[in-house]
């Protein structure tokens, strides 16, 4: 409620507030800064979904089906998910450093110029690689669970019907993974749309504003500049956007499911 109050008022410190109505909202919606951050955010979520979902499926398909190696795989896969977000950022910050980091050092020794703190493309590549490393296993584990729930008879029937490997994937595995994939996409979308800690630790939103996503921008506004009013308006809109997109996403998927069932 405080946030809602803030978003309609201006303050000059000393706990004095003035009603400004929708002023902040109007100002924000007209600011290039917000739209740039929004664009970057969408692009980021889009790219990581595009990488993590197919990669996760691929990993799940190639995981051993049972036995000791399956357990080992599951443990290894869940390790990145257990690491605190800021530690992930720190790991990659060190990993990518050109002087001491394994990745950065290797790349510079190979003659590739790489510096995530100065080059925007390198910064993006690193942030995306970090997210893929951190979260692909979630997608893979969900898909793996989906795959394991397919009765053996389906594979046997496919063998008897002489289905190709692709047909098995296309007509058996993919339809059966549909439910978990929906959840995976939804989770990964919401999470990546709100991403803050890891890029904040890694790049701090830089170089320049290159990796300033919505949440980083918001914190800059609220705590860096102490513009509580606009920041409050920002966070409310941010919240509504996530709610809206997730809702649309969910409804579309559910109704697609239903209409298919009806036909």
């Amino acid at each position, binding site marked *: 409620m405080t946030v809602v109050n803030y978003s309609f008022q201006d303050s000059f410190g000393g706990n004095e507030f003035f009603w400004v109505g929708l002023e902040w909202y109007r100002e924000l919606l007209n600011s290039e800064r917000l739209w740039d951050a929004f664009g970057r955010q969408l692009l980021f979520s889009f790219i990581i979904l595009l990488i993590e979902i197919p990669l996760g499926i691929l990993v799940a398909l190639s995981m051993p089906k049972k036995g000791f190696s399956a357990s080992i795989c599951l443990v290894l896969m869940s390790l990145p998910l257990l690491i605190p977000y800021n530690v992930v950022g720190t790991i990659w910050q060190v990993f990518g450093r050109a002087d001491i980091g394994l990745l950065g050092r290797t790349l510079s020794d190979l003659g590739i110029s790489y510096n995530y703190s100065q080059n925007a493309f390198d910064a993006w590549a690193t942030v995306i690689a970090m997210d893929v490393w951190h979260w692909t296993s979630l997608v893979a584990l969900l898909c793996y669970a989906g795959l394991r729930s397919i009765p053996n008879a389906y594979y*046997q029937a496919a063998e*008897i019907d002489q289905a*190709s490997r692709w047909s098995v994937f296309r007509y058996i595995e993919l339809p059966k993974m549909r439910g978990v994939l929906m959840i995976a996409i939804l989770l990964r979308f919401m999470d990546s749309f709100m991403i803050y800690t890891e890029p904040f630790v890694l790049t701090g939103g830089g170089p320049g504003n290159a990796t300033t996503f919505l949440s980083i921008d918001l914190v800059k506004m609220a705590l860096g500049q102490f513009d509580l009013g606009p920041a409050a308006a920002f966070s409310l809109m941010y919240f509504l956007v996530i709610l809206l997109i997730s809702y649309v996403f969910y409804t579309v998927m559910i109704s697609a499911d239903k209409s298919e069932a*009806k*036909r």
Partner: protein
Amino acid sequence: MASITLEHIAHSYDPNPGGEADFALKEVNYTWEDGRAYALLGPSGCGKTTLLNLISGLLTPTRGRVLFDDKEVTASSTAERNIAQVFQFPVVYDTMTVGENLAFPLRNRRMERQYVRERVQRIAEMIGLESDLDKKARGLTTDLKQKISLGRGMVRDDVNAILFDEPLTVIDPHLKWELRTQLKSLHQEFGHTMIYVTHDQTEALTFAEKVVVMHDGRVVQIGTPKELFETPAHVFVGYFIGSPGMNFLPVAVEGNKAHIDGATISLGQDYGKPNGGLRLGIRPEFVRLTKGDGLPVRINRIQDVGRHKFVNATLFDIEIDIAADEGFAIESDMTKVTFDPEKISIFCDDWRIDGKTIVQTHGGAF
């Protein structure tokens, strides 16, 4: 089409089987004749499905060889063996339509479009789904899905055999009969070798020309329904086939007489003096309640099931079942039973033994 020969086939799911107990399927040696309808009958976990999967090639036997006609196929894949199989639970490709489902095995084999269309139409008519060909398979009921599975099993007309793994388990009882009849007429029409796994004796006996009874990983008898009923080769067959199953009495046998608790029962054959644990088996249908001579029984209860009356009685501390015709009047002074000597089987250590037929010099044993 081909005859299928199993040469000393045995299978264990353990990669390094030790004793016989490790084998899910103990040695089988049998030739399935081309174009006949067989049923594999036995309780759950007796190795029926294992045997079926060995024939279809989903499993490779631990020991022995599989031959189609004279060609060895032990190591061949299911596709090479050209076998169709229908599973216990419906397997349909959810995202395809009914028609695409039926066409799938043909399209994978790159059959001509025209031929595929004709076959799909034909099969759809047969299973009564011709109006649903364009529907997605996903939303259909279990019954219909299983019909699609059956249809997919029959859509190829060049298969060596069609195997059914308890395909009607999930079907409503009133549809079961209809589908089974359809399967049977299909068999008569196309003449494919069909092997049908079931634990339901009615299904097995009505569907098949020959029934293979399995028990504890072993084939205990292969025979026509009549043979299984009249001359069960193993105690298990006697007990499993028939409802209620065969009555068994522990006896001592000498020549053509069986002795139990001081009483004597005449037998239809001369068994000499067999050694081992001996039991006398008699079907409830061949036990008769009487007022006159016979073995003393105490009647426990009478069930009238319409066409028969089933009487449960105690004979020498053993419960036996008696099937009486519906018109047969059971009176309170009927305290004796007689057995039809020709219908008595003698089992030695659970396996049926045969005696010499007696040349009868006088009519009637009792």
